[in-house]
């Protein structure tokens, strides 16, 4: 089996891209990555996307991207795992290269969220849950997270103010991230005064809707002598029971736990060996649950640890180094690819003011819905 390397990445700034279609976004990200490696000719294309049908009346994204790039004869297809589509797309690219079925896998994550109105986007996002038993009682994805957030705060006696630590860190890191949707810092008062969406979730507890696309070019060990490579040393995907109410402990992210454990077992690493963590902070509550499930905080203690600086860029375990889902943005099906691209930038010292100095290992963590499908990647600096 081949080793798998990231050879280059391409990032489209996230935001309102009214002037670009979903194919424009995909092509822009892909060309940014391909132009850095003129020697690379993709022999596999994977597109991660959640709801192009609902947002753009467009499916069949794999072949569409290949065709737009002037390619014929390439296995090219879309994979979907809700908000985890991007992480799963990277996994599929990894699998193809690892297995020797591809030498150059182009992985693109894309989402067009701003061509439709908020209620339509809300409906599209709710499709990540079991339609027959959540949508019919009026639940949206945000309200589901709100139920879990209140449950968490109640169980561990965590205050509203403490929870706000996570969006504040995310926004702080996004200030100097060129591709971030919100390049501005926020204060505790900003969080507490932001509009209520689904009590206790306020606007600034929630990742924003945005258009975006990111690309990573994965290559086999045939190209191991090329410059600026980062190795993917683990790529794991796991599922959890679909409905949160089916789970013994709704505050423990079992898919995250299993995928992470496999990744660590296969690499022989401990969680504390990892230098930074791109976590799935779609909501304030998912940041807390992710860090606690990963063992970076004790149960119920992540918000307090965040307040004490543990997860800052210069802290013990830096998270969301370019702003995470909250502030870099969360174009849902693209997010997992942004994370891997960001880990690549960190591990090739191209992160600018966001650089985690001397980072050797980076972890990305991306899930669909609330930890229903979870992809974990560990990347390692080469040389």
């Amino acid at each position, binding site marked *: 089996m081949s080793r798998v390397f990231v050879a280059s990445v391409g990032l489209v700034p996230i935001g309102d891209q009214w002037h670009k279609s979903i194919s424009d976004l995909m092509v822009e990200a892909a060309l940014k990555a391909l132009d850095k490696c003129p020697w690379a000719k993709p022999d596999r294309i994977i597109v991660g996307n959640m709801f192009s049908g609902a947002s753009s009346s467009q499916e069949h994204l794999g072949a569409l991207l290949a065709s737009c790039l002037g390619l014929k004869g390439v296995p090219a297809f879309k994979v979907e795992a809700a908000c985890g589509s991007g992480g799963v797309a990277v996994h599929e690219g990894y699998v193809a290269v690892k297995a020797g079925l591809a030498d150059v896998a182009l992985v693109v994550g894309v989402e067009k969220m701003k061509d439709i109105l*908020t*209620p*339509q986007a*809300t*409906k599209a996002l*709710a499709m990540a849950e*079991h*339609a*027959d*038993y*959540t*949508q*019919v*009682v*009026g*639940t*949206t994805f*945000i*309200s*589901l997270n*709100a*139920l*879990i957030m*209140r*449950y968490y705060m*109640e169980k561990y006696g965590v205050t509203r103010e403490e929870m706000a630590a996570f969006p504040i860190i995310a926004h702080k890191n996004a200030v100097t991230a060129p591709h971030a949707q919100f390049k501005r810092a926020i204060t505790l008062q900003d969080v507490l005064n932001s509009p*209520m*969406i*689904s*009590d*206790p*979730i306020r606007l600034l507890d929630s990742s924003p809707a945005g258009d975006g696309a990111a690309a990573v070019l994965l290559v086999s060990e045939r190209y191991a002598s090329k410059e600026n490579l980062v190795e993917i040393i683990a790529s794991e995907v796991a599922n959890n*029971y679909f*409905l949160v*109410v*089916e789970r013994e402990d*709704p505050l423990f992210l079992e898919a995250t736990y299993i995928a992470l454990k496999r990744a660590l077992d296969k690499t022989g690493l401990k969680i504390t060996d990892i230098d930074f963590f791109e976590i799935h902070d779609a909501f304030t509550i998912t940041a807390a649950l992710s860090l606690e499930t990963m063992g970076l905080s004790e149960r119920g203690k992540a918000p307090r640890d965040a307040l004490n600086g543990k997860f800052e860029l210069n802290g013990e375990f830096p998270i969301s180094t370019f702003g995470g889902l909250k502030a870099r943005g969360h174009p849902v099906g693209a997010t997992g690819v942004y994370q891997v691209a960001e880990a690549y930038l960190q591990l090739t010292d191209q992160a600018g003011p966001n650089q985690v100095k001397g980072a050797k290992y980076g972890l990305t963590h991306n899930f669909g819905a609330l930890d229903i499908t979870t992809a974990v990647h560990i990347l390692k600096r080469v040389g």
Partner: protein
Amino acid sequence: MIPIAFWRNRRRYYNLIGNKCKSCGKEYYPPVHICKKCGSKDLVDWEMPKEGKVISYTILLEPAEEFKPYAPIYLGLIELTNGVKVIGMLTDVRKEDIRIGMKVRATLRKLTEDRDGGQIFYGYKFVPVE
């Protein structure tokens, strides 16, 4: 909401009918195809108890399109007396009176209706027990 999909499951929504494993006795709502506890495929439809308590709740100000006319909607995470957890709307209650631990009972109510004047969607909601 897809009318036929709702119609197909209507009895489950009306009476909270899930299922029960004939082998180990574990109860489920929503129903499952294979028992998650013992792996048996031998399950029978089973009506959930109607009483439970609120273990979490939210006031949703921005619901999906079908529920817009009823915003804000109150949603509860309810633990039924058999231990099964379900999510459902809370009704006949003032926002300020909702609290964790509150005892509730499932009742049949209108959830929403087909926008084109078609089907009215009925299902369970939870009301406080005095």
